[in-house]
C-alpha cells in the first residue's frame, strides 16, 4: 500500500507541477525516480517533523500540493500543533501519508504504534481522514486527493493486504462503500478491518445470519447519509477499526446516531484497540489477536449481539 501511495505521488508529480514530496528521513531510494525527474520538488528534510509540516504549509500557501510521508506516530503526535495550526487552521491542501497505522510496527513497540492517530486527526477542524483497505483502493483514492481542497491524513496499512475493493465501486472522498449486503447485522469498518469483516460475514452466513459490510475509507467527513439508512435497517451494528476506541470510527458512528438516530444507539458495539498502550511485541497479528480484531472475534461479537440483543446495554 505504501509503495502504491508513493508510486502515485510520482505519477501525480509527472502530470501536475504543483505536486511536491517531502519525506523526513525515509529509507534509501524512496521516490528516486521523482527525485531524478523533478529534484526541485523532492525533499528529504531529516528528522524534523515540526519543521516539515510548517514547510509543507508554506509550500501550500504558495500554491503547491505537498505530499508528506513518514511514520504515522511522527506525523501525528510529534507535530500535532503544526498539523492543527499550520495545516488545519489555514485549511491547506497538504497530504500526510502515514506509514504503519495501528499495529503494523508491533515489533518496534508502543513508541511506533499509531493507535490513536485516527482519533486525534479527526478531532481537528478541516482535516480529512482516510484509511483505504487495499492497494487498489489506495490508487483510486490517491488520484482523488489531487484537487481535494483540505488537509488530509492518509493512513497506510502494512502492505500486501488482500485486494477486496472493486474498481466498479469507484471511490469518492467522503462516501462509504457497500461491500456486502445483509439484513440482520452490519459491520462498519475502515482500513484493513474491512477484509476481516468480509470474511466474518461469510462465516456468519453459513450460520444463517445475513451480515452487511459498509467500508468507510473516509472517516472524516463521515458519510452520514450513506450510513444512517444502513444502520437503521439492521438489528446489530459492530464497528471495527485498528485504532483506539476512544474517538475513532466507532465514536464517530455513535456521535452520528446520537445526533440523528438515537433509537439506533443501543445496537452499536465498538471493536478496536482498548484504552491502553500495547504491552507486547511480536507481529501485527499478535496485537490483532490480543485486541480481538480477528475473524473469530468479529464473528463472536456479531453473533452475540444478534443472539442476545442490546437490552442490557
Amino acid at each position, binding site marked *: 500500500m505504501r509503495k502504491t501511495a508513493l508510486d502515485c505521488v510520482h505519477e501525480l508529480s509527472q502530470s501536475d507541477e504543483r505536486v*511536491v514530496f517531502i519525506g523526513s528521513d525515509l529509507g534509501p531510494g524512496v521516490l528516486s525516480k521523482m527525485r531524478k525527474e523533478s529534484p*526541485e*520538488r523532492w*525533499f528529504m*528534510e*531529516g528528522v*524534523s517533523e*515540526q*519543521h*516539515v*509540516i*510548517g*514547510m*509543507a*504549509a*508554506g*509550500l*501550500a*500557501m*504558495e*500554491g*503547491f500540493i*505537498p505530499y508528506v510521508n513518514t511514520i504515522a506516530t511522527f506525523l501525528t503526535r510529534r507535530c500535532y*500543533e*503544526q498539523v492543527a*495550526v*499550520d495545516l488545519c*487552521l*489555514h485549511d491547506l491542501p497538504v497530504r500526510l501519508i502515514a506509514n504503519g497505522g495501528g499495529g503494523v510496527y508491533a515489533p518496534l513497540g508502543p513508541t511506533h504504534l499509531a493507535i490513536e492517530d485516527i482519533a486525534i486527526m479527526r478531532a481537528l477542524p478541516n482535516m480529512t481522514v482516510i484509511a483505504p483497505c487495499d492497494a487498489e483502493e489506495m490508487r483510486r483514492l490517491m488520484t482523488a486527493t489531487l484537487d481535494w481542497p483540505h488537509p488530509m491524513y492518509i493512513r497506510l496499512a502494512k502492505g500486501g493486504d488482500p485486494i477486496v475493493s472493486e474498481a466498479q465501486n469507484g471511490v469518492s472522498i467522503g462516501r462509504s462503500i457497500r461491500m456486502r449486503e445483509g439484513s440482520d447485522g452490519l459491520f462498519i469498518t475502515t482500513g484493513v478491518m474491512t477484509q476481516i469483516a468480509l470474511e466474518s460475514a461469510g462465516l456468519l452466513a453459513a450460520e444463517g445470519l445475513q451480515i452487511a459490510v459498509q467500508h468507510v475509507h473516509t472517516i472524516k467527513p463521515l458519510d452520514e447519509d450513506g450510513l444512517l439508512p444502513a444502520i437503521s435497517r439492521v438489528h446489530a451494528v459492530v464497528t471495527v477499526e485498528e485504532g483506539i476506541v476512544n474517538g475513532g470510527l466507532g465514536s464517530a458512528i455513535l456521535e452520528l446516531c446520537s445526533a440523528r438516530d438515537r433509537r439506533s444507539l443501543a445496537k452499536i458495539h465498538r471493536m478496536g484497540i482498548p484504552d491502553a498502550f500495547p504491552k507486547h511485541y511480536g507481529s501485527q497479528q499478535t496485537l490483532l489477536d490480543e485486541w480481538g480484531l480477528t475473524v473469530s472475534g468479529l464473528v463472536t461479537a456479531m453473533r452475540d449481539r444478534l443472539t442476545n440483543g442490546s437490552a442490557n446495554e
Partner: protein
Amino acid sequence: MVALDERSRHLRRLVVDALKGGGRGHLGSSMSVVEILRVLYDDVLRYRPTDPLWAERDRFILSKGHGCLALYTLLADKGFFPVDELLGFCRPESRLGGHPEHGKVPGVEASTGALGHGLPIGVGMAIGLRIKQSPARVVVLTGDGEINEGSNWEAAMSAAKHRLSNLIVLVDYNKFQSYGPTSEVLDLEPLTDKWRAFGFAVKEVDGHDTQQLRVILDSLPFDVSRPSAIICHTIKGKGIPFAEGNPEWHHKSGLTETDIRAMYDCLK
C-alpha cells in the same frame, strides 16, 4: 540610543489606541518591534495594500504573533484596513484578535501566536517562491523567547541546507520573555554565533535605530548562497518608560484609563 521621532511616537500612539480599545494586549512585545516594522513597511518590503495577495509581494510573517498590535498598526497605517479598526482590538466582531489571523486580516500572511511556526512556514514559502522563480522575499520576525522552540532550529538547518538567500530572519532580541530575562529563563547566548553556526549570514543592529535598520535591510541578502539573520537589539516596552524592561508589561489585561493616559503622556 536614538530618541524616538514623531513617526515612531505616532505609531506607538496607534498601538495604545488599540490597547485602549481592547483593554488588554501584549504591550511590551509590540513596542519593541515598532521600528523594525516601520522600516520594513516604509522602505523595504514590496506590497500593495489594495491587493494583499499580489503575487510578487514580499512575504512578511510575524512569527511572534503576540506582537500583533505593532503589525496591525503598520498595516492600518499603510491602508490595508481602516485605522479606526484598531479601536476594536479583541472585540467579538473585530477581525483584529490577540494574535493575527491569515484570511481575516488583509496583509497577514500566516496565523501565528503559537510560537515557533513562522520560520518553518517561511522556509516552505521561500522554497516555493524559488521554484516559481519569483523575485519575492520572505521575511520572518521571531521573538527571542520564541526561539526557545526547537522547531525554529529545525527550520534554520533546512534554510541553510536549501541555501535560501530569499529568506530573512529578524530576531527581536529584547532580552525578556514572559517570566523574566531570557538570560535567566533559557539563555540564548551566544546568539549571533548560533545563527552563524546554523548556516546563516548574520548581522546585528540597534532595532530602534531606523537609519541603521534601513542600511542593513538595504544590503540584503548578506550572502547569495545563505539565508540572512539579523539580531535586532531592542528594548521591551520601548517608548513607555514604566514598561521598559519590565516583565509585568509583557502582557496586560484590565488596563485602566489611568494606564492609558500615562502611556499617551509618554508619547507626546
